[in-house]
C-alpha cells in the first residue's frame, strides 16, 4: 500500500486528473469548487499542461471542446449555476462525440442559491441538461479515495466511449479532507486510437469535428441512431453499484454520493438496534444500475430514498423498482443534509408503520 496523504476532495480530483494525463484545464471561479482551479493552476505548469482561467463558464467549456477535438485529455469544473451555463457546450461535445471530464461540485439552488452542499442537480446531470437526445456518463463518488479512483477511470471511459463524463460531487465532498492513497495511473480499458482528432492533416485526408448536420434523413437521424446505439452499449457495460447489508435487509436505503455515506452510518446504527436495514448506492447515476435496484426490491419490504434535494433521484429509483415494493422519501434542498440520527428516526417510523399495517391486515 502506498503512502496516504491528506487532501480536500476537490484537490483529490485534480491530482487524479493530472495522474491520468489530463493536460488541459479551463475553468471559472465559484464556491465551493475553487480549490479545483487553484490546484490546477499550480499543477498544470508542472506537467507541461495548460491552465486557463477563462472569462466565463461558457468560454471554459468551449475551450475544453477545442482541446478535446485536438486530442488532449481535458477537463473543466464548476458548481451548480456555472454548470447550468455550460450546458450548451456539453450538448455540443456530446453531439460531436468528444471525451472530456466535467466536474460539478454541487451547491444549493435554484438560481444563485447558496454555497452549501446540495444534490439538486441530479435531473440536470442524468437527464440531459442541454438540448437534444444525448447522454453524459455521471459518476457519484462517496469517499475521497473513490473520487481519486473514479476520476482516473472517468478519463478512460470518456476516451473509450468518446463521450463526456460528469463527476457529480457536492460542497461537502469537495471541501472535506481525508487521507487518500495516490495510486499510479493505469488504464482500465484498452484505449482506442484517437482517429478523429484535429492534429494537422499533412499527409492524410482532412478531418472535420462538427455538430451541425443539416441533412435530416441520412444525416442527423442516422447520427442520433448511432448515438442511441452507443448509449445502449454504455448502459449494458457500465453500471456500477455498491450494496451494504442488503442480503437480509427489510428496509433498504437508496442514496448516492455523500448522502449514501451518511446513510451507511445510519444502517450501522439501525443494525445495532436490531433493525434489518441495508443500503444500495449507485456509483454511476447514468447509466443507472436498474437491475441491482430491481433485485433489491424483490427481497426488501420497503425502500427509503435519501437525497439532498426535494426528490429527483427517487424518480429513477421508482422506475427501477417498478412497483415491486413501496419507496419512501427523505430529503430537502437548499443546503440541508441528513444526519445518521434523522435517517435512523425515519427507518424506525417506517418499521413502526409496517408493524401497524401488518396488524391491520390481521
Amino acid at each position, binding site marked *: 500500500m502506498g503512502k*496516504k*496523504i*491528506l487532501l480536500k476532495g476537490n484537490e483529490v480530483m485534480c491530482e487524479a486528473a493530472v495522474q491520468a494525463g489530463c493536460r488541459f484545464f479551463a475553468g471559472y471561479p465559484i*464556491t*465551493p469548487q475553487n480549490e479545483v482551479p487553484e490546484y490546477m493552476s499550480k499543477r498544470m505548469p508542472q506537467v507541461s499542461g495548460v491552465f486557463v482561467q477563462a472569462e466565463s463558464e461558457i468560454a471554459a467549456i468551449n475551450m475544453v471542446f477545442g482541446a478535446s477535438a485536438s486530442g488532449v485529455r481535458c477537463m473543466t469544473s464548476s458548481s451548480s449555476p456555472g454548470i447550468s451555463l455550460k450546458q450548451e457546450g456539453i450538448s455540443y461535445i456530446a453531439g460531436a462525440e468528444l471525451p472530456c471530464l466535467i466536474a460539478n461540485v454541487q451547491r444549493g439552488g435554484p438560481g444563485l442559491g447558496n*454555497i*452549501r452542499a446540495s444534490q439538486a442537480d441530479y435531473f440536470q446531470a442524468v437527464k440531459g441538461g442541454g438540448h437534444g437526445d444525448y447522454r453524459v456518463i455521471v459518476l457519484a463518488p462517496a469517499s475521497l479515495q473513490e473520487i481519486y479512483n473514479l476520476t482516473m477511470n472517468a478519463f478512460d471511459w470518456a476516451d473509450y466511449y468518446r463521450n463526456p463524463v460528469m463527476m457529480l460531487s457536492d460542497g*461537502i465532498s469537495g*471541501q*472535506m*479532507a*481525508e*487521507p487518500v492513497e495516490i495510486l499510479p495511473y493505469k488504464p482500465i480499458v484498452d484505449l482506442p486510437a484517437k482517429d478523429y482528432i484535429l492534429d494537422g492533416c499533412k499527409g492524410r485526408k482532412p478531418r472535420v469535428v462538427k455538430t451541425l448536420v443539416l441533412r435530416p434523413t441520412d444525416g442527423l437521424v442516422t447520427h442520433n441512431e448511432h448515438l442511441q446505439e452507443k448509449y445502449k452499449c454504455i448502459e449494458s457495460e457500465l453500471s456500477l453499484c455498491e450494496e451494504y447489508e442488503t442480503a437480509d435487509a427489510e428496509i433498504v436505503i437508496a442514496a448516492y454520493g*455523500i448522502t449514501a*455515506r*451518511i446513510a*451507511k*452510518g445510519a444502517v*450501522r*446504527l439501525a443494525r*445495532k438496534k436490531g433493525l434489518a436495514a441495508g443500503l444500495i448506492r449507485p456509483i454511476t447515476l447514468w447509466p443507472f444500475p436498474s437491475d441491482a435496484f430491481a433485485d433489491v426490491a424483490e427481497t426488501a419490504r420497503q425502500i427509503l430514498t435519501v437525497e439532498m434535494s426535494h426528490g429527483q433521484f427517487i424518480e429513477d429509483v421508482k422506475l427501477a423498482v417498478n412497483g415491486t415494493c413501496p419507496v419512501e422519501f427523505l430529503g430537502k434542498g437548499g443546503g440541508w*443534509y441528513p*444526519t*445518521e*440520527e434523522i435517517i435512523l428516526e425515519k427507518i424506525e417510523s417506517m418499521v413502526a408503520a409496517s408493524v401497524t399495517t401488518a396488524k391491520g391486515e390481521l
Partner: protein
Amino acid sequence: MDRQETRIIIAGFGGQGIVLIGNVIARAAVIENKNVVGMVSYGAEMRGGTANATVVISDDEIFNPFVSHPDMVIILNQPSLDRFEPQIEKDGLILMNTSMIKRGPQRTDLKCIKVDATQIAQEVGNLRVANIVSVGAFIEHTNLLSMSSIEQAIEDLFSSKNPKLVEINLKALHSGAEQSHCLQPVGRT
C-alpha cells in the same frame, strides 16, 4: 451515541489559526494510520469573524463527516464557548484558551483543560502560535494522538516553507503541554 469515533470541534476568531489546528491534528492522525475526516467552515468568513473546523478520528471507517455533538472541543475565544458548550456530548472534554475566556464552562460534566494560550504564545515570541500552544495542551491531557505525531505533522507542514517556523511552533507545542492543567469534572462525586 455508541461510537468508536472521536469527534472534535475547534473554534475561535478568524485569524487565530483555527484551520491550522485542524490540519495539524488531522495530519497527525494520518501519520498514526487512523481514519480521519477534516472539514472547515467555509463561506463568507473574515478575519475577526468566527471560524470553526471539525475533525473526526477513528480506527474504523468514518461514515458521517459532520460533527454536531463533539466529544472534544478546542475553544480559543468567548463567543465560541457560548456557541459550542451546549453541543458537547455528555462527559465530554473542553479545552479553553483562558487568555481570552474569562468564565469557565457552565456545565459540570465536562473535563476541562485550561491553557493561557495567547499569553504563552507571547512569551514564546509570537502571538500567532497560540493555536499550537493549545494543541500542545490538548495532546498532553488526552490519549488521542502522540506528541511525536504532532511534531512530525508540524515539520511536514512548515519545513518546506521556513525551518524557523518549525522551531517556534515546536517550542509553542511543548510550552502548551507544560504550562496547562486539566480539571476533572466538578460534577463528579
